[in-house]
């Protein structure tokens, strides 16, 4: 009898569970995978307080989210993982800017949580600045050197005077 009472009390207490109530504070949490972009100028200086426009893959003309980068040039957003495709993030400040394409979700079409994890697993350290240069520093140095030598060579060729 005593045992039955104890069981009923325990069940009752358990049914009261759910969110932990402590002075009326409800604390819920869920895991989201967010995308963080960091914008900086070529000098390495962060693009602070630049405007950010996020475009979802289903609507490339209307911004899905708008915001500003922080002092470190960072901005993060949580993409809707049901919208699979290439998300575009545009960062603009004073006529400087770039557009980054971030693929969210794979073509497998699995569960949303899996897609989210995949998106998070990809660190994608893609640079938002000067997407046109993909040369390594050595290649770049050689190219810059030959371009400058081209100019100097031209100068020497025409400066050699008439023979």
């Amino acid at each position, binding site marked *: 009898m005593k045992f039955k009472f104890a069981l009923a009390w325990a069940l009752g207490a358990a049914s009261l569970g759910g969110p932990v109530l402590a002075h009326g504070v409800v604390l819920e949490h869920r895991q989201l995978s967010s995308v963080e972009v960091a914008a900086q100028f070529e000098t390495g200086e962060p693009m602070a307080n630049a405007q950010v426009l996020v475009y979802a893959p289903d609507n490339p003309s209307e911004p899905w989210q708008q915001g500003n980068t922080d002092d470190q040039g960072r901005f993060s957003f949580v993409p809707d993982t049901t919208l699979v495709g290439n998300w575009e993030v545009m960062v603009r400040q004073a006529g400087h800017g770039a557009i980054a394409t971030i693929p969210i979700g794979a073509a497998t079409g699995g569960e949303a949580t899996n897609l989210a994890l995949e998106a998070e697993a990809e660190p994608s350290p893609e640079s938002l600045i000067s997407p046109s240069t993909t040369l390594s520093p050595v290649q770049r140095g050689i190219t810059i050197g030959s371009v400058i030598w081209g*100019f100097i060579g031209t100068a020497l060729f025409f400066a050699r005077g008439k023979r």
Partner: protein
Amino acid sequence: MHIPDGILSAQVCAAGYAVTGLATWYSLRQINRRPDPTAEIPKASLLTAAFFVASSIYIPVPPASVHLILNGLLGVVLGYFAFPAILIGLFFQALVIGHGGLTTLGVNAAMMGIPALLAYHMFQTRHTVGQLLKEPARTGVFAFLGGALGLGIAALIFLALIILNIPAQLDAGAEQTAVLALSIGHVPLAIIEGVFTAMLVLFLRRAKPELLEG
């Protein structure tokens, strides 16, 4: 101050190429009229190299930083050779160091090249307006004005182009403030480039005065 790809609409880029085409044609025609059109090529190629490198020299102007452009200097020293020199320099900057872009090459060349030609004419007025000043102060002052003006007008064109082409979704007010701040940042740079131009021209005047006759 180069405008990268993806900032301006296709129409503006096409218009930029049209203006650059016209200005290049006009400059080459003026060069061809000289008794010896190839005589200035060594000077032009060396200054093209200097222009190409100048954009990687950054000068901190709080809150951002600006880089040397030297378009006014090219105009003062090269005359009509300045436009093709700037066009070639910008082409290599876009290609090699990712400064500016190929779609905006026309706009950038017009933005920096036409002020260079104005700087050249500014410098040439030293023979007429500048008679009140004595040499070498006259050459120095007009070289400074040319160097500073070339960059100043380019910065104003940049300001106008960006403000007139803000995409509708952007917060126009914030973007305008940012562009304005950047343009104001070019005022000290204009003074630096003016002083630099004056120093170079005064040096050339002493060392090789025939180089300034063009």
